[in-house]
């Protein structure tokens, strides 16, 4: 099995410090251990399934999230709702803030880099982040190229609005896909649209004749090999989560029923009236999404949800889901 590749330009830090870079750019590892493989990168996402990944902006938030049963947290300086409100260029968060969050919780910690900003991604990898979100929520750094994620030892999650976009990201090395949704709105409509698009296209793919797959791959601008693999598996080759606008236990249950493997909740928790209660309720609704009595029970008395912005009333220029190529 192949180990992680070193960046040809020599600035790669794809290996964990403990393993070190070996001769000729090939990583070495003690005791015949292989690191940074696709199996390991995709495997961590498999461990997150059925769970809730929560945006947090302080170590205290991270502790509340872990206490509520989050399976991972996304460390940020600002949640998407505040990025929208404050405007300006949204960048990777201060590594010191991310580290302070990593120190406080035992669950995996994710952080965002800008689309195409491989230097931010290398910094996140260097501080030992568990997952990088190459995210449209931040201001894109490259309007043509995404990060070549195959070159990293740390796994990446990327947003997608449809199957073609999901498979393009996987071909670049993404080990997990999420819907884009319209982050920071509290309006679930775009997450529904994207998850339905991805899952519906996979269902259509499964009914196609082999010779039709070639034309379909061209139509959705995705590599043929991944289209074929998806058709054979009947699902994406990586885990699919919902993200963008999820704000209530009912939103989480809706997305699980549509067929995603788990949910990200961004602004929905810490922009609500009672974050601890809401976080716990969303975790419980995600696990018990098939039991409507439980979903009803956990939905009671959660206080004010985040105020929210109606996406259909939003001018095109303010929408961020269209970022990514």
């Amino acid at each position, binding site marked *: 099995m192949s180990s992680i590749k070193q960046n040809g330009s020599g600035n790669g830090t794809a290996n964990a410090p403990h393993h070190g870079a070996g001769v000729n750019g090939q990583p070495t590892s003690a005791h015949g251990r292989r690191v940074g493989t696709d199996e390991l990168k995709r495997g961590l996402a498999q461990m997150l399934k059925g*769970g809730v990944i929560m945006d947090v902006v302080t170590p205290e938030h991270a502790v509340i999230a872990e206490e509520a049963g989050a399976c991972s947290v996304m460390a940020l300086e600002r949640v998407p709702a505040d990025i929208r409100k404050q405007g300006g260029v949204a960048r990777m968060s201060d590594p010191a803030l991310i580290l302070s969050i990593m120190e406080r919780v035992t669950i995996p910690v994710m952080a965002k880099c800008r689309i195409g900003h491989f230097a931010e991604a290398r910094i996140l990898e260097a501080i030992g982040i568990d997952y990088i979100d190459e995210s449209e929520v931040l201001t894109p750094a490259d309007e043509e190229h995404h990060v070549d994620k195959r070159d990293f030892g740390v796994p990446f999650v990327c947003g997608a609005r449809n199957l073609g976009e999901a498979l393009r990201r996987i071909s670049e090395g993404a080990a997990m896909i999420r819907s884009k949704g319209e982050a920071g709105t509290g309006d679930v409509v775009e997450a529904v649209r994207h998850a339905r698009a991805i899952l519906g296209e996979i269902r259509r793919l499964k009914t196609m004749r082999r010779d039709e797959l070639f034309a379909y791959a061209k139509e959705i601008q995705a590599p043929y090999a991944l289209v074929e693999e998806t058709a054979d598996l009947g699902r994406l080759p990586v885990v699919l989560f919902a993200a963008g606008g999820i704000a209530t236990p009912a939103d989480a249950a809706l997305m699980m029923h549509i067929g995603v493997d788990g949910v990200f909740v961004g602004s929905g928790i810490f922009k609500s009236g009672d974050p601890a209660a809401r976080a716990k309720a969303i975790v419980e609704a995600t696990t018990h999404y098939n039991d409507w009595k439980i979903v009803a029970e956990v939905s009671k008395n959660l206080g004010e949800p985040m105020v929210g912005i109606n996406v259909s009333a939003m001018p095109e220029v303010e929408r961020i889901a269209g970022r990514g190529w």
Partner: protein
Amino acid sequence: MKIGVLALQGDFIEHEHMLARLGAEPIEVRLPRDLEGLDGLIMPGGESTTFGKLAKQFGLVEPLRAFAQSGRPMWGTCAGLIFLAKDVGRNQVTLGLMDVKVKRNAFGRQIDSFTCDLNIPDLADGPFPGVFIRAPIIESVGQTVQVLCTLDDGTIVAARQDNLLATSFHPELTHDSRMHALFLRACKRGSLSCEL
């Protein structure tokens, strides 16, 4: 044969696929009532803190302990191992059934996750593919615990105690069904000790 898979969170579907492939009927366990009529139970990989919160909230902790005390085989992989353990070095909800001291995230963060070939004396036909993802290790074991597998440096990564089986790695993420087949044979006989 009906085998329960704790389905609070994590990679329970991968275990279900492996069980179905071997001819068993997987049952997802989220509530105490789901434990009825099972011949064995698997606790998957995932986040052990999440398992603990949800198990406590939905009244699963005591029923799971009773299930173990009934003598039926139980197997925990990775987070499932942590959930079985008596001592995890911090304050979190576990079943406290297995007399082992576990260290969570013992190899480091995700970038330190690794695969390697494992020599498991109880499995015939060569090395087993070990997949370690932010994996725990067993730091020490009580007198009644039998060590089943160690890494080259002596680190304990699989153990058994009576009807309880625990692995730090993820056989459910591989194509190798030998560990699951071993567990199913134990469930059929109602005892792990016949197998190991």
